[in-house]
């Protein structure tokens, strides 16, 4: 038994390095997607202190809007143009969504306890599920991968005495995610709005007193999270279909947040990669010992074990409590 747990998986890894690389790569790709969802959470949590449960459904909603708009537009404008027109319009929709949420939900609820705001995002989730389904229908849709000029197909690599299959799309996803994080970092660091965002994240009161409009910042931050959701929706939709089942997988972003810390953008990325890789490795090498399917909870257990030693996460701010 002990041999099966502690030695045999590593022997397998050493014997078949190509399988190891393949598993690692799959974990990495899953991790990138978790990280993207977590990124949306972190952005909103930092700026408004709202734990946004609706991030998962925003991903689905953005994806659905894109595909739905494309289906409406493409007959009259042609495929390539239609796809990009739909993309622009979806960005517009996400802005309207952010503005509406700020206006209708957040503004009346300002200064309420965290759990109330958390609950309000549940309300948003329900609303978006119903709204999205009644407009675009509940059936899964195919993401318009080619029309958005994303690469498809796979690359076979012959390394380490075996074959490793890598989807081109996954590479694109990793690159785009990297670019987006870099872009966000630059935006936060060097622009006027970015500096205001960081100020709000540090202290609402202090930010207000130097003349930063909290309402504007919240619209911007929810809009940014909407863009992140759109990118996530495209990437995830391209791998499988765009459907509402995706919103449950978005819960996986929670252990990612715990690992990385609720307030850290790099933490979300690193946490996502750790969870993604840990999950796939665990499933592949240790899963068969207990009958498989451990992917569904392994991430939470990793996060739980981690919490016992570092409650504030990898990069989170240290929690200091005063009476």
């Amino acid at each position, binding site marked *: 038994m002990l041999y099966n747990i502690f030695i045999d998986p590593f022997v397998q890894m050493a014997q078949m390095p190509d399988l190891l690389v393949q598993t690692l790569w799959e974990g990495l790709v899953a991790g990138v997607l978790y990280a993207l969802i977590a990124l949306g959470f972190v952005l909103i949590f930092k700026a408004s202190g709202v734990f946004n449960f609706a991030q998962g459904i925003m991903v689905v909603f953005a994806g659905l809007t894109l595909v739905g708009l494309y289906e409406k537009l493409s007959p009259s404008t042609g495929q390539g143009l239609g796809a990009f027109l739909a993309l622009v319009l979806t960005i517009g929709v996400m802005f309207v969504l952010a503005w509406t949420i700020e206006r209708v939900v957040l503004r009346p609820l300002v200064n309420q306890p965290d759990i109330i705001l958390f609950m309000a995002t549940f309300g948003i989730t329900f*609303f978006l599920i*119903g709204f999205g*389904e009644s407009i675009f229908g509940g059936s899964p849709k195919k993401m318009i991968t080619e029309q958005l000029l994303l690469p498809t197909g796979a690359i076979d690599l012959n390394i380490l005495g075996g074959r490793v299959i890598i989807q081109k799309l996954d590479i694109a996803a990793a690159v785009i995610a990297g670019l987006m994080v870099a872009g966000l970092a630059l935006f936060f660091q060097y622009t006027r709005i970015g500096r205001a965002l960081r100020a709000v994240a540090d202290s609402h009161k202090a930010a207000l007193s130097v003349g930063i409009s909290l309402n504007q910042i919240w619209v911007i931050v929810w809009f940014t999270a909407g863009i992140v959701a759109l990118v996530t929706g495209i990437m995830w939709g391209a791998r499988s279909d765009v459907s509402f089942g995706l919103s449950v997988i978005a819960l996986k972003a929670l252990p990612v947040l715990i690992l990385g810390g609720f307030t850290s953008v790099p933490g979300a990325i690193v946490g996502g990669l750790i969870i993604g890789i840990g999950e796939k490795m665990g499933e592949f090498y240790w899963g068969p010992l207990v009958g498989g399917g451990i992917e569904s909870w392994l991430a939470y257990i990793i996060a739980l074990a981690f919490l016992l030693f570092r409650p504030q996460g990898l990069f989170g701010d240290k929690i200091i409590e005063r009476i």
Partner: protein
Amino acid sequence: MLYREAGQFKTTYEADMAVFPIRQDRIGLGLIILAAFLLPLFSSDFFIGTVMVPFLVFSLAAIGLNLLTGYTGLLSLGTGAFMGVGAYACYKLTIAFPEVNVLIWIVASGFFSAAVGVLFGLPSLRIKGFYLAVATLAAQFVLEWCVVRIPWLYNYSSSGSIDVPTRTLFDIAITGPQATPTTRYLVLLSIVVIFTWIASNIVRGRIGRMWMAIRDMDIAAELMGIRPLQTKLLAFAVSSFYCGVAGAVMMFLWYGGGEAKDAFNINLSFNILFMIIIGGLGALLGAFLGAGLLHLVPIFLKFGLPALGVPIGGETAEHWTHIIIGMLIIFFLIVEPHGLARLWSITKQKLRMWPFPY
């Protein structure tokens, strides 16, 4: 007019500290309970089976979660799993010892759930808030995995579902296919009334005050001599006990077996959490109000609107249910963030002053 407390003098401390110090409240509650027990005389089996039974099950689970989240301030997303533990424990026990009355096993299954709850409550000493919510999510997914992967739990049946056997009380079938909705409803109602009464006394006493002290500020509570570990674990134990019993009655008195492994999923946990937040955190009444609202609105949209002549199809009804529940949640949070229970107590206060508010 009727709601006056003038002339009701309290002469002892006990009378002053009573759960319902105002006579009208006691009479009102008595009437409600009486009406609840007499309800089967006036309504159809369909109404009892699809509206009242689930409502009571959700209320019981919501009370359980409210003890943990509302009174102790520990956010839990594992309610569905703890309910599942209760359901499966009750199933295994009543299969293993068929001669013992099933009601005893329904209560006993709560203890199994409490044990699991304590286990997953251990991290609560170090973490709180949303971090704890994720820790309890681990409970949810691990236990969900268990009921799929461990065939012993469902007695190796090929479909993976469990069948509730017929069990009797005074020779009347209360569980299983022979039990009528009315009998199941009456048994369930008795259980819910008793457990609500126990809960209302727990939260008023020493234990409840310890919980509330921990909720309001745990460091200060610790300095005052309240042991955080014991108190938090006790809250987890009692809360999971209630959830376990709720799960057992859900399986035995409502579902009657079938797709057990899908019933206790993450959505159930979320629904119970919505119920107590909408109903009111830290108020037992809130559990009932929240369960009523979130359970009745979908039913109303599904059956009520077509009956009123509004043409609404099955799929559209579902979409509108989502939209309306979403808007209701946001509406109630904006109108009264402390939930329906607070709304009710404000109304009560107004009634006392009426017609001369100052």
